């Protein structure tokens, strides 16, 4: 089965052609147009600008993905697109275009839950993954831990109470004047540190419910930076900045992985999937490898370009989903439930 996958739920406009084979999905082409330069000066994504830019780019991005794969519309078997959750204006651009394209070309069409997309990004490298799996989906918008029974199933175990982990990276990069987006910049800085600064203390929750919280980490980081005059403008070459970034890297990775042993035992998990933009983080990848080995879990983290939002993961998930009964009246949903 040959699929076209489209994704524009936030600030990446991406299209990919994926071939679903008995041995798993094969990536035939992927185009991704980032809006980092557009949103950078604002320090975060501006939803209306994101939607405006997606609309101008979706035709070119899609045509380029088809051309790079050497595929014409008539060769396709299915069109898959992100239906939600996400920024509604952004979602609706590729969502509307994909429906019109599939309708005119006579192609089956399917809307995909964005988080099922992130799970299925792992299918490219580990198509034979064994379930149940623990799945951490972590980005600038999500920090969720799920139990998956299959590639099309996600059951929430715990999530952040406030900010996503990715926000801690963006905010830190902003406070240190390192640039945008923060995740890759902080990670590069951290990798050059000789040692990590003191790690941050994990939050304790009075209600005892398992969850994460990252808003306190942002505040703690702010205080730490303020306590060291000149640090905010010292720049990425400064060893103090590097060791603070490494401290953030190690803190976030250890917090994210901490609940895994208990859940792995309780759910008799066989695998661990980590996906989403923050799954590109080098410290998280290396700590996850150690934890998975210790717990006897097979680890599946997509290659970095498949961790951030992309059309390939949407096609990969779309290949496994049932087709909707009334595709053309389907609507995008900024708060789509699993």
């Amino acid at each position, binding site marked *: 089965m040959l699929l076209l996958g489209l994704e524009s739920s936030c600030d990446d406009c991406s299209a990919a052609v994926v071939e679903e084979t008995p041995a798993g999905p094969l990536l035939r082409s992927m185009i991704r147009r980032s809006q980092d330069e557009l949103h950078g000066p604002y320090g975060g994504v501006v939803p209306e*600008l994101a939607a405006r830019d997606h609309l101008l780019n979706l035709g*070119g991005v899609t045509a380029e993905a088809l051309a790079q794969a050497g595929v014409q519309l008539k060769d396709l078997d299915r069109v898959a697109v992100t239906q939600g959750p996400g920024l509604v204006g952004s979602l609706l651009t590729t969502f509307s275009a994909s429906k019109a*394209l599939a309708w005119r070309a006579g192609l089956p069409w399917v809307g995909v839950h964005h988080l099922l997309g992130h799970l299925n990004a792992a299918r490219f490298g580990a198509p034979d993954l064994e379930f149940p799996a623990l799945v951490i989906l972590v980005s600038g918008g999500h920090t969720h831990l799920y139990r998956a029974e299959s590639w099309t199933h996600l059951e929430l175990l715990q999530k952040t109470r406030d900010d996503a982990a990715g926000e801690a990276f963006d905010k830190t990069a902003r406070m240190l004047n390192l640039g945008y987006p923060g995740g890759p910049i902080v990670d590069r800085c951290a990798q050059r540190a000789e040692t990590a600064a003191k790690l941050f203390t994990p939050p304790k929750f009075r209600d005892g419910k398992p969850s994460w919280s990252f808003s306190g980490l942002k505040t703690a980081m702010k205080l730490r930076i303020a306590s060291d005059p000149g640090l905010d403008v010292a720049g990425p070459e400064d060893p103090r900045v590097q060791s603070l970034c490494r401290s953030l890297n190690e803190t976030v990775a250890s917090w994210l992985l901490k609940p895994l042993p208990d859940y792995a035992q309780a759910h008799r998990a066989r695998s661990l999937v980590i996906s989403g933009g923050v799954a590109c983080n080098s410290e998280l990848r290396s700590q996850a490898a150690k934890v998975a080995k210790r717990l006897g879990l097979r680890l599946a983290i997509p290659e970095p370009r498949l961790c951030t939002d992309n059309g390939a993961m949407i096609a990969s998930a779309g290949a496994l989903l049932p087709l909707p009964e009334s595709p*053309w009246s389907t609507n995008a949903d900024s708060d789509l439930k699993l």
Partner: protein
Amino acid sequence: MILGIDSTTERLHLALVAGDRAWTRGIPVGQGHSHSHALLPAISELMAEAGAGPARLTGVAACVGPGGFTSLRIGVATAEGLALTGLPTWGFSAFELRAKALGEAGVPGPFWILLDGQRQEAFVQKWGGAALSEAERRPMASLPHHLGGLPWWAPQAFHSRLDPILGPCPIKLPDEGDATLRGLVALCRERVGQVPESPLVPFYLRETDAEVNFPAASTHLSPALRQGLAR
């Protein structure tokens, strides 16, 4: 067979034109993204009414604004999706559509067209047989002076807010919905002979709040991302 789409208001306007024949549909859809729910099924039904399938389409003309940001994007994105199947596309402004509707109804120019700009503002453009001024955004209170005594027309939904400032609308259209559909048909016929546009660039006539609130951080924005492409 040319498809005409106007998703810029709370009433969706569709036309299908084949030579002398035309099929039209006006659908009240409300605000926001319910256009996404209604648009493609309505196009599909209209084609069935014309006894044709999607393969019979030969081009798409879409209204690029100004109007509701999200709703106009749904129409333009739909046209962009159809363009990917090999169809030529053309854009037209909401002013041109309304001017064409008035022309089809026999209203002689020149006249002002006033569209709801939200936030106590109106989008205005002077029309005769063609646009006679730049499209502009004007504070509602400045309209009496700006219009200079020329007749004006505004969609019915905008009348209640214009009435205290300008009095009753001097140009009457007995059936606004029907006139708009006839304008859309006329526009589709006109566009066929013209050079297609790709991609279609919206005409928002209003910048994003980010640009208003952070002008210093917005110097990198292209005109297409600011107010869109003026028509």
